[in-house]
């Protein structure tokens, strides 16, 4: 059965590896935004409905408080080690704690990737506070998922070109691919310049038409599927990729094969 046909019937994808590269854990949103039933068991049930094998998740709590947030992510990883790939979050304003926290997350809490959000922390991605993140990621040959948005002072996609060139063993995922049309164009331009940069399809404004344009511009192997789940409902993003007018092999790469390859690079 083709992917679109399965989704038209509301069925989980079978025999298709699906990895959500951009997810969260919303159990303690702590007032920022209302999210109904954000417990991880509900998340697992919804993943099963879509046929999602794994999600790469960071706790939303980690953006205001990375220590407590990373502890929450660790709980989810411990409970569902085959379904959650934990992403460690650090805050560049606490630069002296970046390496110790990443070591704690990777060596004691079972994390396997890094998530940064320069907008939430109001800190430029090319600033000093992130330097230890790049060094650590390079040592561990891991991946970094960063929020990106066009026309910001902190994390527009173009800022990642020089960082990605300096740390070629790190896979950098441009979260939201710049967030809006001008951002997508900027992200595409950046990805064309660096083999270790990837586009992320998480974003309410990314349409199937943009998925098709991105595939044509950079190739399906440079794009990963993401949803922001449970920050937002995952079924919208899921549908957009599954209905996109691209060939079946490209969909499979985007839905999971590319992210699996990125995760496999970990030392």
């Amino acid at each position, binding site marked *: 059965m083709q992917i679109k046909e399965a989704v038209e*019937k*509301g069925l989980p994808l079978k025999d298709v590896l699906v990895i959500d590269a951009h997810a969260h854990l919303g159990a303690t949103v702590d007032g920022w935004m209302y*999210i*109904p*039933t954000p417990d991880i068991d509900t998340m697992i049930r919804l993943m099963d409905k879509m046929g999602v094998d794994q999600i790469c998740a960071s706790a939303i709590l980690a953006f205001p408080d990375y220590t407590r947030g990373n502890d929450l992510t660790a709980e989810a990883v411990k409970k569902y080690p085959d379904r959650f790939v934990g992403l460690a979050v650090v805050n560049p304003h606490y630069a002296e704690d970046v390496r110790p926290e990443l070591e704690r997350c990777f060596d004691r809490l079972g994390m396997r990737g890094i998530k940064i959000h320069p907008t939430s922390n109001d800190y430029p991605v090319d600033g000093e506070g992130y330097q230890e993140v790049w060094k650590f990621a390079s040592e561990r040959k891991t991946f970094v998922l960063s929020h990106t948005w066009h026309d910001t002072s902190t994390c527009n996609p173009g800022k990642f070109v020089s960082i990605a060139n300096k740390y070629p063993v790190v896979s950098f995922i441009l979260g939201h691919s710049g967030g809006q049309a001008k951002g997508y164009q900027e992200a595409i331009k950046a990805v064309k310049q660096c083999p270790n940069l990837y586009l992320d399809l998480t974003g309410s404004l990314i349409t199937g038409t943009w998925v098709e344009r991105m595939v044509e511009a950079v190739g399906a192997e440079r794009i990963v599927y993401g949803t922001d789940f449970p920050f937002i*409902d995952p*079924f919208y*993003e899921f549908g*957009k990729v599954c209905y996109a*007018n691209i060939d079946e092999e490209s969909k499979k790469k985007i839905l999971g094969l590319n992210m699996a390859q990125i995760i496999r690079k970990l030392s």
Partner: protein
Amino acid sequence: MSQFYFFDANAMLGRWPTEKLAFYRVDDLVKRMDYVGIKKALVYHSLAQFYDPMSGNRTLMEEIKGYDQLYGCWVLVPPFTSEIGTVDGIIAGMREDNVRAIRFFPKEHGFKLTPWNMGELLSALEEKSVPVFIDSDQVELGDIQRLCEAYPQLPVVLTRPGYRGVRMLYALLAQYQNFYLELSSFLLYRGVEEIVEKFGAEKILFGSGMPIQDPAGAVTKLRYAEIGEEAKGMIAHQNLERLLEQVGL
């Protein structure tokens, strides 16, 4: 396969000034509807938003002529500048063209949805039970509350509601029987499920938001939603059909 079908409450024709969207022509809209499985659509024209409402409405009616699956939604502004003619003339024109829904762009077009600014237009629409559609980026939710309060029999549909104003949206859903949400860009995690449980399936209308949004998003959300088939049918098409059928032009 589920038995319900989709009647889209929020589709647009015409070019978008700041981005090349998926389509702008009526034949491409119809192809897109077929591709994602949408049977009928309520449509407005971008010229009515970005140029002149009444000439945009005329362009809309010319373009959808002969497409029985498309239903026109006119864009209006307050009557005091006479751009839309008289209120009686508007109602007569709607009757003649079988237009049963209105859309407003208060921010884009520079007005307020208040009795002093709208004159007799909103009262007339309320009297005829004509549903009005408003994008969430065109108003403050406080404006929607005042609109629902001032015109309790006027069906008010908030389109592209987003997911950040939920604490106010729930207050509107709880307190105003004439307030409805359209599904496109309503990305609140399990929001459909919770609204159906708390406020009833009659409060949500399926809408694709295309071509600004991807219709596959809302279609997929509803197909997989953890609600009953009856509720899915109400959201997918029955609620909009009921609103349009009760219009008394």
